[in-house]
């Protein structure tokens, strides 16, 4: 049999080889802020586990490099990722001198590159498997459970990012819930306002260009400026409208962040509603009208169901965008995971930055996968119905 | 001359073209007819190697078409397709000049050739040359598409449903234009169509394809008179046969001695048109005039009906 190489596998194997043999696996620091010292895989792990991890990485890279069956590639990527995730925790305990509470161990570039390489392999396998929407959500749930288990088991507790977490466990969950409230709440508000506005824009041509232009211009205002600009009007409302302050409306804090996110969210919702409604086939509308449907019946019976996948796409854009933008709320005291990011930047404590950034990315990633699956389900259902 | 020898094309397990052999004489039009999926387009595309055959050989004037790089081969063969495929980002003149530019002709020669072709196709080079394809009508776009295919003076022109997107009136005109130009340049044309009417009108020879096989390859009259199989019979259309047969002949070939009343029909009109005119006007005979306008004689209903009968 002739040996055949997989093109992507060449890239993956090259990254893995560099990461495993030339890049540091973990960083050791005597305390939180001093510069770190690099540790290779063999230095960072106990005498038996180090070579084991190297063997797993080399085997995984070889499987990726050659043209191998998808199942094998899937197994290789999952095993490699699981080994990396477990063993970075082992490295943490191994490198921390006994009884030392100041020493910090964090994953270094080699670890991240190995994670990247095998995630690439996993992503390629999953893409080629062409999974159904439900299966994709299933994979996401399994991955989330696995990470949750590792967290609960304490396997990672010796890593620096979790030491940062341990110091801030309470505020972590408080900021997290604020982050989710901001992102989801502003999305709900945007849908409640944006859908009717979009329908109105679809029906009233004069309104369409004007409304979309205004929303477009709002999008061009940099987020930090918009957050800042809303401080004044909301402060005024809090001071002058009776009861507003009691509702939590204040010049700084969550309120301006919420309003800013709401304003940013309007454009994708309204624009996609308009595009979705405009994309309803003329024939379907004519037939509906010809059968004597009223405007309202036509809207809910024909136009809306047909435009639904496009509107959902708008909602996906908004949710992913909001989860990211909500980090900036921290700059005006609005809370959210951004608090850790900006604190971390301020103290040049990268593990603190990660404590804010990693959950944000994970949230956005999960939201994207779930909504993509929902969009695909509604879109394919419709296609089957019309076929 | 184009020699196709034992050409087969398989995609995995499906055989799209199955051991087809035929010879196309120089300076003639061969029409390949068939239903969709019969392999006619694949056969055409193997001539300029847009598709590589699984087996068999194609020779152009005695040379294997694989003896030069595929792109050089294609530059020497004209190619016109349904929906014209004009480059939307280039002007009409630039579109026509595509292959001459690829061949590195000098500017003056390119301009002269573009102007010649545009004039031939009744498009004023000054007015239409700088326009973009979307600014032309469907018929004009189609003419530019054929002009582009002919630009580098190819000996062979391949056409895949070139008139498919045109409405019936423009289509007839486009077919006549093509016949005139083929006579003028002496180009060998291979044309693919699913329309038997078009095949009978255009072809010196017709190749009928069914399920990848060449079922019959003969002159139009023979296809009509002696269909090789039930499939060809159906394709020809039993009820249409006599009229198609008549459309092959010229009025001048059916002239009888004598005179008749009314306006004269030109001798180069088709016998089918003459019969239609007779039936429609309720007369039994029409006068016939030559190219110079002089009377040649007359055609009669009886005479034409005899010609429409199955040849012995």
């Amino acid at each position, binding site marked *: 049999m002739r040996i055949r190489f997989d093109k992507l596998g060449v890239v993956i194997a090259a990254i893995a080889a560099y990461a495993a043999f030339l890049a540091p696996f973990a960083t050791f620091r005597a305390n939180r802020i001093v510069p770190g010292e690099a540790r290779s895989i063999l230095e960072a792990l106990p005498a038996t586990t180090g070579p084991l991890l190297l063997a797993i990485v080399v085997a995984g890279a070889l499987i990726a490099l050659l043209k191998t069956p998808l199942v094998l590639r899937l197994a290789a990527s999952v095993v490699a990722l699981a080994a990396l995730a477990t063993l970075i925790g082992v490295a943490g305990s191994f490198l921390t001198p006994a009884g030392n509470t100041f020493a910090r161990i964090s994953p270094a570039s080699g670890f991240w590159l190995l994670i990247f390489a095998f995630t690439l392999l996993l992503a*390629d396998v999953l893409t080629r498997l062409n999974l159904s929407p439900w299966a994709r959500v299933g994979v996401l749930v399994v991955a989330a459970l696995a990470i949750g288990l590792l967290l609960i088991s304490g396997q990672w507790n010796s890593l620096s990012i979790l030491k940062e977490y341990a110091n801030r466990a309470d505020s972590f969950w408080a900021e997290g819930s604020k982050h989710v409230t901001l992102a989801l709440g502003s999305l709900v508000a945007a849908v409640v306002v944006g859908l009717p506005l979009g329908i109105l824009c679809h029906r009233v041509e004069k309104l369409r260009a004007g409304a979309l232009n205004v929303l477009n211009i709002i999008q061009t205002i940099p987020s930090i400026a918009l957050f800042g600009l809303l401080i004044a009007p909301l402060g005024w409302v809090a001071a002058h409208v009776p009861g507003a302050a009691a509702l939590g409306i204040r010049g700084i804090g969550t309120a301006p962040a919420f309003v800013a996110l709401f304003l940013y969210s309007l454009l994708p919702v309204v624009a996609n509603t308009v595009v979705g409604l405009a994309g309803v086939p003329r024939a379907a509308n004519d037939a509906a009208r010809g059968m004597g449907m009223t405007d309202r019946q036509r809207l809910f019976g024909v136009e809306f169901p047909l435009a639904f996948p496009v509107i959902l796409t708008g909602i996906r854009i908004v949710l992913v965008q909001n989860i990211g933008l909500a980090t900036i709320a921290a700059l005006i005291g609005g809370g959210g995971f951004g608090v850790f990011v900006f604190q971390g930047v301020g103290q040049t404590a990268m593990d603190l930055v990660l404590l804010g950034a990693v959950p944000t990315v994970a949230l956005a990633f999960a939201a994207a996968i779930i909504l993509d699956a929902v969009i695909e389900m509604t879109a394919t259902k419709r296609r089957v119905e019309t076929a | 001359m184009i020699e196709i020898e034992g050409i087969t094309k398989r995609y995995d397990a499906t055989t799209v073209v199955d051991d087809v052999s035929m010879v196309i004489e120089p300076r003639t039009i061969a029409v390949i007819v068939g239903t969709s999926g019969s392999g006619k387009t694949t056969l055409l595309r193997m001539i300029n190697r847009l598709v590589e055959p699984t087996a068999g050989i194609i020779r152009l004037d005695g040379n294997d078409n694989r003896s030069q790089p595929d792109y050089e081969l*294609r530059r020497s063969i004209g190619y016109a397709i349904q929906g014209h495929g004009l480059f939307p980002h280039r002007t009409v003149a630039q579109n026509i000049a595509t292959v001459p530019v690829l061949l590195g002709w000098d500017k003056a020669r390119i301009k002269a050739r573009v102007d010649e072709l545009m004039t031939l196709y009744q498009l004023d080079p000054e007015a239409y040359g700088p326009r973009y394809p979307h600014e032309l009508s469907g018929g004009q776009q189609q003419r530019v598409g054929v002009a582009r295919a002919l630009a580098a003076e190819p000996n062979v022109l391949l056409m895949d449903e070139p008139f498919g997107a045109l409405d019936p009136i423009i289509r007839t005109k486009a077919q006549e234009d093509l016949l005139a130009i083929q006579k003028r340049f002496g180009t060998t044309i291979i044309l693919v169509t699913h329309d038997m009417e078009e095949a009978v009108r255009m072809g010196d020879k017709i190749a009928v394809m069914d399920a990848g096989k060449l079922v019959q390859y003969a002159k139009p009259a023979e296809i009509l008179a002696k269909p090789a199989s039930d499939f060809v019979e159906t394709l020809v259309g039993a009820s249409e046969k006599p009229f198609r047969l008549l459309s092959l002949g010229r009025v001048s070939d059916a002239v009888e001695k004598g005179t008749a009343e009314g306006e004269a029909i030109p001798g180069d009109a088709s016998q089918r048109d003459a019969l239609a005119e007779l039936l429609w006007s309720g007369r039994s005979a029409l006068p016939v005039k030559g190219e110079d306008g002089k009377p040649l004689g007359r055609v009669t209903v009886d005479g034409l009906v005899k010609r429409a009968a199955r040849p012995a």
Partner: protein
Amino acid sequence: MKAWLPSLLRLLLVVLLVAFVTNPGWFQPLLKPLTENGAPAIYNQGSLLTLTFLHLRTVLIATVAATIVAVALAILVTRPAGAEFLPLSRSLVNIGQTFPPVAVLALAVPAVGFGEKPTLIALFLYGLLPIFENALTGLTTLPANVMEAARGAGMTGWQRLLKVELPLSAPIILGGIRLSVVISLATATIGSTVAAKTLGEVIIAGLLSNNLAFVLQGGLIVAALAVLIYDGLSAIERYTARRMGQETA
């Protein structure tokens, strides 16, 4: 609306923008009511003109780099040799978009330090996605019969790419660049949280000293730049698309 009105508004915006960044002092009376306790109304820790210039330079460098890389990648995965990478590259683009710019920015700092570099990296990575996505759309949705004609005319792979595929997808690629530039203009302001010299410096100074006039002027300059550049690029896009008889978005 009369046809000349948008052009007039645009011209007015350009004049206002230039006047503001070159002679901000003229506008002091307008911004004064937004300040408290006699704080300065006009940013006084650096020249607005210089910051505007640096802001634009950062965006320009990042966008040019992102365009070159994104278009090259899109070309690669749409060639037969790179076809294997196409589905994966689509997934990666999808995943990449879920990374918030702030996170990219903050995570780039340990690798390259504070200042302009992490901003450039964040803008580059974030700008890649819209351009790559649009270039991919453009290169994979070319009209089939035009591509067939190009092949039939005897163009080589390179000739098809340079003479047909890229010119035909130019409007869509330009659309991606436009999106990318607008996102980058806004994102560059966040760069000032890691000490990049951009207009974000003005906004953040305003936030820190509770000076709304700073926040407003920084925000408005960036917004005006974004609107004008967006408009300009849209016009080029419409011009190239209309020449080909395509519908404009």
